[in-house]
């Protein structure tokens, strides 16, 4: 996983609530067996509309997505995170994320930042009026900064440490392999097994 410390970039204001993962990446893209090449599927249905915010020339190269509440609801597809990253987004800001999407994003180094809706409103206003306005997301200081906006955000210390260092969960867990083996040794025999009887 790529480490995340701080990122500054232009933004895409996405004034929609309940953006589900079927909108982020439609199901027919899920047949791919790789983690890359999903950028053209990102918001595929909406991108057919030339007036959709992502299609505006002034939004090209933007890397901060400022989304409405309940972003990432629905299907557990991690492809939604890959599609956002493949397209070039480094961070997503919203007042509320769906749990599975948030977990997936943090495991892939896409920083999802939860801010009050009032702050999101301010960021929408700023970046709609000035497409060149930049937003800085600083994970070290847990702070979002833009013209006229300074807002602290929360992220649990463990997730922050993994992101700052780009650490892979599996190798961390495998350091505790004796704990897993000890648990397995005392597991009751009535627990289910998929072995063919």
């Amino acid at each position, binding site marked *: 996983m790529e480490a995340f410390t701080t990122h500054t970039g232009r933004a895409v204001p996405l004034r929609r*609530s*309940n953006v589900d993962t079927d909108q982020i990446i439609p199901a027919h893209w899920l*047949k791919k*067996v790789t983690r890359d090449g999903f950028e053209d599927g990102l918001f595929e249905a909406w991108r057919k509309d030339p007036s959709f915010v992502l299609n505006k020339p002034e939004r090209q190269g933007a890397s901060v997505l400022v989304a409405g*509440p309940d972003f990432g*609801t629905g299907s557990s*597809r991690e492809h939604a995170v890959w599609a956002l990253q493949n397209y070039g987004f480094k961070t997503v800001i919203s007042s509320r994320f769906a*749990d599975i999407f948030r977990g997936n994003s943090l495991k892939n180094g896409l920083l999802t930042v939860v801010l009050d809706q009032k702050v999101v409103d301010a960021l929408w206003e700023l970046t709609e009026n000035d497409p060149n306005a930049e937003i800085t997301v600083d994970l070290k200081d847990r702070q979002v900064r833009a013209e006229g906006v300074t807002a602290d955000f929360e992220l649990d210390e463990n997730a922050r440490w993994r992101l700052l260092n780009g650490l892979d969960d599996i190798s961390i867990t495998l350091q505790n392999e004796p704990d897993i083996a000890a648990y*397995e040794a005392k597991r009751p025999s009535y627990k289910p097994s998929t072995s063919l*009887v």
Partner: protein
Amino acid sequence: MGRTLAEKVWDDHVVRRAEGEPDLLFIDLHLLHEVTSPQAFDGLRANGRPVRRLDLTIATEDHNTPTIDIDKPIADPVSRAQLETLRKNCAEFGVRLHPLGDVEQGVVHVVGPQLGLTQPGTTVVCGDSHTSTHGAFGALAFGIGTSQVEHVLATQTLPLAPFKTMAITVDGELPDGVTAKDLILAIIARIGTGGGQGYVLEYRGSAIEKLSMEARMTICNMSIEAGARAGMIAPDRTTFDYLEGRAHAPKGADWDAAVAYWQTLKADEDAVFDAEVVIDATELSPFVTWGTNPGQGAPLSASVPDPASYEDASERLAAEKALEYMGLTAGQPLRAIDVDTVFVGSCTNGRIEDLRSAASILEGRKVADGVRMLVVPGSVRVALQAVEEGLDKVFTTAGAEWRHAGCSMCLGMNPDQLAPGERSASTSNRNFEGRQGKGGRTHLVSPQVAAATAVLGHLASPADLTDARTPAGV
């Protein structure tokens, strides 16, 4: 202090607990399918890691599988490649797989319970958000992403952030013609698509206790549509009776030990929930969705709401966009909405009881002219049972299409899709824009409402059917 059901199951699975770290939880059962696993197996391969517990892992094919001509090669080369990738990965790593054509193949959340693998007090994960289905057995069951699929394959554990608990108490008796699907749609409309966020929901109360296992699965299945991490129901005699004798249920002394443990799995009297919701079952009626998220629903007797009636600006905007996408106008009675397609199936409503209740309404009746009805059993076992009961004949005689098992039109990854502008009444779980096919419009309904809608050609409940049935055999 007393503990909730979810807290008990969580505590029993903690492998490691340390200050400043998420708890590391042991996973009892890992279900795999073709869509969310290829990149996880790639990760194992790249790091030279084996699957730690093949005896706790099982795979099937469901999302991409065709529901007709299953003996022929799959037409879509990309779908075919994904299924072939799963077969190759399972063979290479030694994972038990039930592929297309196998008698145990089917929608992963139908297969686990029917094999007796889903058991009370277990942790169940799958790279699919509807894993919440398994909570019906008092299991802590939740959907995970592909990185977590790889993590479970490699370690049989997951580091997990703590959750909050919400009790949803449903008391009273469900009126005639009101099903588990109507109940869960009403719950989601009440608490909203984000209302369960961060919570494990525990459904309880006299109305829940009376539900069959299959109805309980319908409820827990859609917990994710309220944004919840999981949904659970305390195991009881109904649960034990469902499990006893199934292929992977405990046997002999293990059965007795298991039941003794399972009986401890309920919230303590003095358990404190972080939130509580109370629903009066007697006030419910058939419920359908009108919008583009599962929270945008209303009783069938109501009309399409006016977006201006929403105080919250983002809800108002969402309702405006939904009506535009759905091609509906405020004030239009829901019963006046005509459909082109009816879909009965999915991990929400693709089990035998669902097929029985749809068939009981279709028997002696015909699907309306111009309406296409697809019936897709949740698994091969469900299909075989339906055939044994003659339900397939009821469906085909009525003019519906009887298909092979799979996820099918629930998400349209296979050829079963809506065309742009087509409208469906669907027993599935998501009415998102384009979910059932680009430009398709979905109304979520119960199997009974689906069947009545197929007969009348517009959204309807069985109570709207005033026709005389054709006697059987005519």
